[in-house]
């Protein structure tokens, strides 16, 4: 059973919509850095069917240093505003820092998205302290905001499973509710395109660990390199791998493009037989 915020998720496939409070993120290039634009984005993605909003204050790629104070300024008060405006949406904050996690939880966050794979072990303790969820990600051991370069694995999926499940067990050991812990293979984090494709095609092995799996695929470079497409032309490729991951049992999909992702996930769920078709009359009357 997966629980996030006040919601028992059951068998549902969830969309985590990306909301960047950054001036420089790779896909939206700062479109929602300003508070008003970010609030509008939250309203929009909730209307489109997002279950979770993932608020980030630091872009993943290397770039201008963002210190703890600045990251808190970008995220915490915004979390409080979203909480007030959308009482039922699950609020996630994308950070690797315990100080940021703590302020986000005070402001009403339900989930800490530790996309850099346990760099700060104190983040799990914050999740435990506030009774919120935690995403345990594989970043191949890379420090935050660094790019993979010539990384080799004996077996990339074995490494993904070993590291993420160790992080998940650690989280439970320090008191995080085991029903609020997710694991994420970390596409493109500590991985080249080949590695990301391998974890995509073998995602079922991760699902078999029993921990709910979150995937973050949206418009990433492994999609771009696979299809030879720039960042603004990767939606179809993203949707294809989203379907592949959903078919293998991924539960949460971190996405920029919410409406088309919702359609894909609903279609996969219907095909798997875990969701009822909306209307099936053809040939039956």
């Amino acid at each position, binding site marked *: 059973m997966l629980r996030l915020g006040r919601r028992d998720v059951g068998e549902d496939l969830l969309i985590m919509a990306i909301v960047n409070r950054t001036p420089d993120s790779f896909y939206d290039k700062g479109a929602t850095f300003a508070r008003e634009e970010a609030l509008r984005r939250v309203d929009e993605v909730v209307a489109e069917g997002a279950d979770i909003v993932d608020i980030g204050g630091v872009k993943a790629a*290397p*770039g201008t240093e963002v210190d703890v104070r600045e990251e808190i300024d970008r995220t915490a008060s915004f979390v409080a505003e979203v909480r007030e405006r959308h009482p039922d949406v699950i609020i996630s904050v994308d950070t690797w820092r315990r100080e940021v996690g703590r302020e986000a939880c005070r402001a009403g966050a339900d989930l800490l998205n530790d996309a850099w794979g346990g760099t700060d072990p104190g983040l799990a303790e914050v999740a435990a302290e506030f009774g919120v969820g935690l995403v345990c990600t594989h970043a191949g051991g890379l420090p935050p905001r*660094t*790019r*993979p*370069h*010539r*990384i*080799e*694995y*004996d*077996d*990339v999926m074995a490494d993904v499973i070993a590291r993420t499940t160790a992080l998940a067990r650690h989280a439970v050991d320090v008191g995080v509710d085991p029903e609020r812990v997710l694991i994420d293979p970390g596409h493109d984090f500590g991985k*080249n*395109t*080949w*590695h990301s*494709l*391998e974890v995509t*095609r073998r995602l079922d092995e991760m699902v078999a660990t029993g921990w709910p799996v979150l995937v973050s695929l949206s418009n990433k470079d492994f999609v771009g*390199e*696979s299809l*030879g497409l720039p960042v603004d032309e990767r939606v179809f490729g993203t949707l294809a791998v989203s379907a592949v991951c959903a078919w293998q049992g991924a539960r949460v999909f971190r996405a920029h493009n919410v409406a088309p992702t919702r359609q894909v996930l609903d279609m996969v769920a219907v095909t798997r037989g875990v969701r009822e078709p909306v209307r099936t009359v053809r040939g039956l009357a």
Partner: protein
Amino acid sequence: MIVAACCVPQTPLLLPGLTGGPVAEVEELRTAALAAAQTVVGQTLVGGGVNEIVVVGGAPRTGSYPADAPTPAGRLAPAPGRRPAPGSLPVPLAVGRSLLAGHPVLLTLQGVDEHASPRSCGELGHEIAARPGRIGLVVVGDGSARREEKAPGYVDPRALEADAAIGDALASADLPALAALNPGLCDDLLIRGRAAWQVLAAATESTSQTHGTSWTAHTLYGGAPFGVAYWSVTWLPHPTPQA
């Protein structure tokens, strides 16, 4: 004695199949690297006696690696038909070997600890030059991965100057300049070729001393299409040393 040498990049992109479809920048680089390796093979196979190609590249430990060891391609680019294999080669040695595929040469894959001191690298270079027969060197290494914001290692303002100095040294067979490369600075700048180039400098210096040769460099390629500095360069001795 060393009868020819070349320097080629150690990028995994040069391992066959790793780019998926052909990538123009990589194919241009591959053409230059293959031509450089071909030059070394041609020079080395002239004449009788023992002819050996020694591939020198960075490795976790200094020592020779089996010439038939598995490729690391499956570790870097796992795919259904390309699985990780135990005991696979360090990438630089695999790249060097791949450039020599199809040539009937006696091949030695010589790893050099990428953190080895310049002195250790020098000793290894002298030892290789003293091996019997005609030896061609294929030296695998590349420059900084921190040349620009989009580079794999992000940007370091010292990278361009360091790469320019290395490029000049390779393009002019400047042995003292290569021997003097600072390991700490190279590590900081993610310059992976330092140890291998210092082996090259010592090996060619050794042959110069014993045979009175000087070295003429010819640059086939210099560029950084992905934020890492690559060179493809040949070094030929004048006059050609005779056993």
